[in-house]
């Protein structure tokens, strides 16, 4: 065994995939045990529901980010985009309430606007990256600033709040459940399944990985690189839009503080899940676990008193690095153990 470990960077393929999948899951299980030991209420039904519902926002966005990152891109604009879409949704729904009164149509109208905006914003990121040949980092850094300022401008620096009539109709989308599972979690599950199928069972997913590994080779292999890359950004925009649709009914408001740092949380969830930041390899299932890990950390910190509040960020940092170590580093330690 130890000989094959020295043989080089390419161990048996099946084994590598196993660790990539099991690493994040192992981290999550350890975290759950830790949470339970610190406070048994962690595994209470109410708390589990809270964690799942909360992780839906970052999780849905992160599924989109998995495609972007797998294809070698990056999208820093998702947090601002979510705030922007939420803001515009609230403005149009308030307008619709004023013009026609509050009804189910008001909410559907808002949701429609959200989808159009998400797809449009994703297309802009994709178009500028592929056709204007600007690095994704710069394009999305730019759009991140633009969306953030726009929502601040629309809200006059304050907060946009949804009119009460529409609020009452829309509220159940976040707070109600089907088969005891809240709707946001259903949306998350659905997005994750569709994402997994797209990534692992379709040509699109294979193209994403091919482009992320080597764009030039992909181009010579007759893959329409620009089109696929643009599609990943549109998919990302669509995911942001879906996340926003379930976010708005929660507090019925949007402000400049909405979605701050969601982009980093989404990227962290993707990387914790085993996707390579440099592209070429994507795991939707891992991303889902990554999002759960991130949410669980915050929840555990709220449920315990033994760690000073001032150190919350440090604990998060340690767990994130440790989780990634488990899926990268476990390759080596796992083999050593196997050799023993």
């Amino acid at each position: 065994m130890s000989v094959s470990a020295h043989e080089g960077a390419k161990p048996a393929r099946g084994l590598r995939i196993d660790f990539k999948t099991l690493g994040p899951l192992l981290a999550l299980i350890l975290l759950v045990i830790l949470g339970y030991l610190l406070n048994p209420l962690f595994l209470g039904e109410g708390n589990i529901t809270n964690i799942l519902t909360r992780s839906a926002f970052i999780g849905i966005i992160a599924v989109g980010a998995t495609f972007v990152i797998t294809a070698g891109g990056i999208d820093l604009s998702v947090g601002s985009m979510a705030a922007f879409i939420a803001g515009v949704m609230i403005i149009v729904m308030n307008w619709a309430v004023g013009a026609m009164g509050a009804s189910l149509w008001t909410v559907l109208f808002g949701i429609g606007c959200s989808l159009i905006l998400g797809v449009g914003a994703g297309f802009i990121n994709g178009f500028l990256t592929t056709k204007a040949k600007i690095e994704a980092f710069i394009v999305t850094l730019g759009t991140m600033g633009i969306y953030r300022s726009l929502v601040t401008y629309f809200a006059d620096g304050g907060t946009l709040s949804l009119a009460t009539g529409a609020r009452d109709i829309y509220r159940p989308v976040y707070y109600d459940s089907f088969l005891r599972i809240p709707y946001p979690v259903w949306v998350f599950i659905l997005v994750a399944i569709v994402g997994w199928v797209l990534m692992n069972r379709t040509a699109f997913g294979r193209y994403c990985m091919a482009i992320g590994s080597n764009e030039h080779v992909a181009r010579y292999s007759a893959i329409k690189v620009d089109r696929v890359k643009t599609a990943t950004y549109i998919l990302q925009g669509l995911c942001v839009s879906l996340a926003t649709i379930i976010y708005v009914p929660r507090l019925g408001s949007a402000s400049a503080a909405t979605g701050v740092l969601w982009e980093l949380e989404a990227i962290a969830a993707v990387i914790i899940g085993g996707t390579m930041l440099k592209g070429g390899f994507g795991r939707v299932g891992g991303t889902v676990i990554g999002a759960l890990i991130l949410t669980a950390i915050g929840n555990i910190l709220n449920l315990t008193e033994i760690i000073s509040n001032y150190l919350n960020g440090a604990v998060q940092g340690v767990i994130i690095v440790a989780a990634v170590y488990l899926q990268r580093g476990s390759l080596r330690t796992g083999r050593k153990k196997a050799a023993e």
Partner: protein
Amino acid sequence: MSLKAIALGLLATSALVGGAVAQDEKIKIGVSIPAATHGFMGGLNWHAAEAEKRLEAAHPNIDLVIVTADGPEDQASDLEDLVSVQQIDALVVLPFESEPLTEPVRAVKDAGAFITVVDRGLTDPTIQDIYVSGNNTEMGVNSAEYIKSRLNEGDNIVILRGIPTVLDTERFDAFMGAMEGSGINVLDDEFANWNRDDGFEVMQDFLSRFPDIDAVWAQDDDITLGVVEAIKQAGRESEMFVVGGAGMKEIIKGVMDGDALVPVDVLYSPAQIATAMDVTVAHYTSNGPVTGTYILGAPLITQENAEEFYFPDSPF
């Protein structure tokens, strides 16, 4: 708001280039404040812009220039620009952070400007000519007094704090000091970053952790809105009440209407920037002395007096 401010700044600059020769007599006052990144600062920006309109209309020889900053470094650069480009006679500044901005403000002072500091004090108070501030200590104490008046020995409360800063610590320490000896248990405190989403999540966790909560000190109205949603979700509205702080219009409206869940608010008004601009202008227009320290009250806002703190047009 910041876009508007930039546009205003550009207009002001072009007006200056055009008419600089004719307007030598004009008194120029720079106003440097943080950008509108959250509710309270949004309100502060709005009140600053309102005060600018009002004061410039009332005093033709006064020219106010508002600049907004995204962080301490950005604000330090703003101060340099106000001195070198705008050549201000006076400065009204709400420092992003106390320590990093003490020296930059001192440099403005050394350039000959009259200095008004708002809200967050500098580490060297001799720099300022005027200091205007809300009262964090009184805010903490008044909140504690109200909670004590409603609860009995053995009752339980939870606390949601803001962002770890001097300002937050002042409030918290004053509150804890006033609660001492009351026999009311503080179950736990967590940071909610003056943010609705964090307020919602932290409160959800408090609710699943503690079966018996009688009151919540959220000390901020944005946090309060998140807390209220979490309590409603858990269906525990009848068990507890929430005390926020600042004076957001939605909360004041609720207090006016007799909301049982959020029965009071404690004032920490973003309009204090307008007070600071008023007294600074008064330095040039009044025949009375204005220099000194102005600590604004942090009164308890109840159903009886809520009307006078209600600004329906403000974004906050």
